[in-house]
Structure formats: C-alpha cells, structure tokens
C-alpha cells in the first residue's frame, strides 16, 4: 500500500537517514581508521578495514605514556565535577531561596565568567600554580576548570531548585528536620536529575577543554587530548594510533550522555522548563 501518509513518512525517514549518516560519518571514519594498519590508511580509501587489526588499541592499553593520559584526564575531570557540584549546591540553594542585596548582579556575574575566553586565565593560573607548587598536578586543572564549571552548575541547579516549592522546605522545618538532614534526605532527591545534568555539563566541559589543561600540565599530569596532539614522530603521523585514541576519548562522554539523556534538554534550559 502506498498511501500519501505512508509516502510522506518514508520521505522523512530518508531525510533522517541522510542526516544521521552525515553526522555519524566522521565517527565511523575514526573507528574505521583505528582498526586499519597504517599501511592501509596511507594506501588509499577503503570503506571498511581490509586487514582488521587491534594493534593500536593494544598499544594504548599497554604503553603507560598513553593510558596514563586517560587516567590523568579522568582524575581531574572527576575531581572537578565533585568540587563544582559540592560548591554549587549550597550556592544555588542560597540564590534560589534567599533574597539578598546584589543577588541578581552576583548571579549574572557568575554566568559572565563563562564569557571570557579561557586563554585570558591561562597565564595567571600558570603563574599562580607554579608559585604554590600545584603546577603539573591534576588538582591544577581541576581547580582551574572550576572557574567555568562552578558558575554553570550554580545556574543549572538554581533552576531546578526553584522548581521545588518552598513549602517543602518549611514543612521539613515544621517536622523538625535540621537543615543538613533536610538537604540530604529530602531536598537532594528532588533535584537528583538536576544534579545529574549539572554533573554532566561539568564533566563534558572539563573533558573537552584543552587550553588550560595543556598550559597547566607538563609530564606528570598530561591529559589524553594533549598526548594526542604531541604524537607527530620522526616517522610521520601514526594515524591508526591517533584514531584509536580518539575513539577511546569519545567513549566516556558518550557513556555520561547515555545516563542523563532524558534530562539534557531541561539542563540546556538551565532547569527552567
């Protein structure tokens, strides 16, 4: 049967399929490359690996200069996410529940922090952290990223918190809850999705940020993205290895997105949906 409705739905299927292919092609190509030998990559276009090889992945997982890049990156990203959320929760609660002088300006100033290019902060951070011995540690990058992520987390969490009726806070006070107990037992479960979304955004921004991460590390805390940009050897580019590293870099982000996929739209609207 070929009714008009059928035809139009088939039309939109085609459009969607083309669009998806367009989006996924670079990722497919990356995976494709990571499974080829360097000889095959350099010798022409093949749509799938003719000689399937896992040597690039094996090298990454066995060579410490490679896998330590992942460990370093994950360390500062997780550190940063934990610090950002821990600081942002009470700050967002204050913005959401209390009225104080300059509150609106302070709130806006928080977000305007994100408007300055990271390069502006690279120099002062480098100098400061060198002076106090934080240079080339995961803490250096984790703390530097807080500059962007704490304000963002405050904004997202404030939106979610303002969606919780104030009467719930009051009812808890009437019931006799102490504030910390109320906050952890009653309030945080109510904004769990907000915390998830805020954590996701912190994770994501910290994971993809390159400039500060590169400036503030040398060898001990070198993140994976930096390792990847420094692999031009005398023998030329190791394409396959780079592609494998790229694939492995995508995976943590994709995993996190999977967990918060239902809340991301609300998170982009800063909880104000």
């Amino acid at each position, binding site marked *: 049967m070929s009714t008009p409705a059928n035809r139009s739905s088939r039309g939109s299927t085609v459009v969607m399929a083309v669009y998806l292919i367009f989006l996924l092609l670079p990722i497919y190509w990356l995976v494709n490359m990571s499974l080829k030998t360097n000889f095959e990559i350099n010798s022409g276009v093949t749509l799938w690996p003719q000689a399937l090889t896992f040597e690039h992945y094996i090298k990454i997982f066995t060579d410490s200069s490679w896998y330590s890049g992942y460990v370093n990156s994950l360390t500062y990203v997780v550190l940063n996410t934990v610090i950002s959320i821990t600081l942002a929760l009470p700050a967002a609660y204050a913005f959401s529940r209390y009225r104080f002088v300059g509150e609106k300006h302070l709130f806006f100033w928080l977000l305007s922090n994100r408007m300055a290019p990271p390069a502006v902060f690279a120099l002062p951070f480098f100098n400061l952290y060198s002076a106090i011995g934080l240079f080339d540690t995961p803490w250096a990058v984790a703390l530097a990223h807080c500059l962007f992520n704490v304000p963002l987390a405050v904004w997202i969490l404030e939106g979610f918190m303002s969606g919780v009726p104030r*009467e719930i806070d009051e009812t808890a006070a*009437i*019931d006799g*809850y102490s504030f910390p107990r109320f906050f952890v037992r*009653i309030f945080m479960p*109510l904004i769990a999705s907000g915390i998830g979304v805020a954590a996701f955004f912190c994770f994501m921004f910290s994971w993809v940020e390159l400039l500060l991460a590169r400036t503030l590390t040398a060898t001990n805390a070198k993140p994976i993205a930096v390792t990847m940009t420094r692999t031009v050897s005398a023998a030329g580019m190791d394409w396959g290895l780079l592609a494998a590293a790229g694939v492995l870099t995508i995976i943590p982000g994709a995993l996190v997105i999977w967990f918060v996929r239902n809340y991301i739209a609300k998170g982009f609207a800063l909880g104000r949906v």
Partner: protein
Amino acid sequence: MTLELDRVSRTVSGVPYIDDISLKLERGSLNVLLGATLAGKTSLMRLMAGLDAPTSGRVLVDGRDVTGQPVKKRSVAMVYQQFINYPSLSVYENIASPLRVQRLPKAEIAARVSEAARLLKLEPYLERTPLALSGGQQQRTAIARALVKRADLVLLDEPLANLDYKLREELREELPRIFASTGAVFVYATTEPTEALLLGGSTACLMEGRLTQFGPTAQVYRRPGDLATARVFSDPPLNALRANKSGHTVLLDGGAVLPASGVLADAPDGAYTIGVRAHHLEVEDVASAERRSDTGAGGGRLIRLAATVAVTEVTGSESFLHMDMGEQRLTALVPGVRRLEPGAAVEVLIDPDHILLFGADGRRAGRALDAAA
C-alpha cells in the same frame, strides 16, 4: 497550650501584611480564620507557626514568649493549600517523617502511622509515592503527617480548597473530630463563610491584614461588630445600602423612602449603611404583589423597595436574583427555580428585624438590642 498573639504586626518592604492583631486561642479550641484572599490568613498562620517573625509584637505560648524561636523547636503542624509532601518518600515514610526526626521507637512509629492512615483512609496507598496519588489522597497524606505529630498547634491553611466537593464535605466533617481528641489548638483558614459556619468553634474575621472580630462563630455571623466583618462573613455578598435617617423616615441613596422601623427606629439621626444578607431578601414581581395587597395579605411591617431585575442565576434548587435599585445592586438568594426576565419590575421585601445597621464609622448600631434578642 494556649497561643496568644500580642499586638503582632508584620510589614514586608513597606506593605503591611498583618496590622496590629491581638488574639488568644485556648487549648483544645477550634478556630477559623475567615477572610478573602490576601486578607492575611496565611501571613497570620506563618506568624503563629514561627515560619515568619513579626515586625513588632509578641507571640506567647502558655504565657511564654516564643517570638524568636525557630519553627523546628516548636510543637507545630501545618497543612498547606497546595498538596505538600516529600515526593521522594513513600506515603508511609511521609507520614512517619516527623516521628523519625523525633527518634521514636519503631513500634510506636508504626502504630501511630497506621492509626493516622486508618483515620484518613490511606491504608491501601502506604507503599506508593505521593505523586502517584489523587489530589485528595495527597492532601490526606499531608493531614496525616500533621496528625501523627500530636503537635500543640495545628494549622490548616485552606486545606480543602483544591479538593473536589464530595471529598471536601467528608473531610470538613471529619477533620475537627480527628483533631479535637488531640487537645491541640486547631486553626483553620478559609475564604468561605459557609465553611466557617459548618466548622463552628470560634471565628476570626480578617480584612486587609486587620482582625475585624473574633468570637464564637455563630455569634460573629449573627451579630457582626462592624461592616467589614459582615462583608467578610457573608456569601453571597452582603447587600449594603447607604441611607440617611432623619426623624421617622429613612432616605435611601437611590431615592426610596422607608419608615424607620425595627432597629432603625431606635437609631439616632445620621448616615448609615443598611446591611441585609441575600437570603433575607424576598422578591415579588410587581403583578403578584398588587394582587396580594388587594387581598390585604402580607404585613405592613415589611419594608418594600422597587427594583428591576438585572440577572437571574439558577443553581439547581436555589436562584440568585441580581437587581438594580438606582445605582445600588441587590442580590437575593431565593429557594426554588425563579426565572425573571432582565428588566422586569419587582418588589424587594425586607424584614426590619433582619437588618444589620452600621453607623458612619462602620460599627454596628443598635448593639444594645443584642442582649434582649
């Protein structure tokens, strides 16, 4: 306990929310706060609970000043108009939550929760979360939580306003009974005069943040102290006619002239407001009124006013007749279905004994007669 408000006021950024209210609520009493929206009912409750601090004045519990005491140190339970529960906890845990905070033994918690659940018919839903319940069940959960706590002061802020009508009637009957046994000071805020009358107890009438009158509900209703109280405690709205008395006649604003009978007879000359509740007005269309005066029926005691029908509303077994009398609007609530065409000429009959007469200052005149009545 007794709760006493001593000249309490609260002003928020220049706007007076509560204006100099003094009130004493006795142990085990049922008190109704009656007022329109924005009259200050919720603000007053928040002061009683300790959620807000008064700008001036004191709050006393058993004579002890608790004005600055935070709410969690007080023995208070409160139910909001919106259904407020902890969405992440089950109904059982919601009800048990104040007891868990008090660290009561498990058996005691279980006993109290199941008793409250039985009284409020929540037993089948204890394992669900509040958001999986209907509005009425959610509000009953909130009420159960207020009940298990056995607080000395129970505040219910329009608890039934968002419920459907059958459930309201049921709960309105049960609530005072359920809480009466606890010996708590029970405060119930409502916008509806009918609800106050059904609840009984004492009523405090609020208007624009001021307390206009506090006393036994029936007494406040029958003998309001001033025009504001009568207006608040009247549904449908009070018919208020401006009038001028001189000698044996009373001149209404619309131009009609009445004999000064009943409560009007004893009042000194001057400007008054004549208040009559809607159900005290009788309406006759002019044709039948003439017929009746032919036969000589209908006492000359009744005040008769000519008016024209503006709108008729029929609500099942009762009819609201809205009538114009010159500039003034009269509303009558009459039994049965009465459909009158807009523009029809009618006579409005008022029994002088039903008149509430208010002086120029808003105070009710002829209060001396109350004792005799």
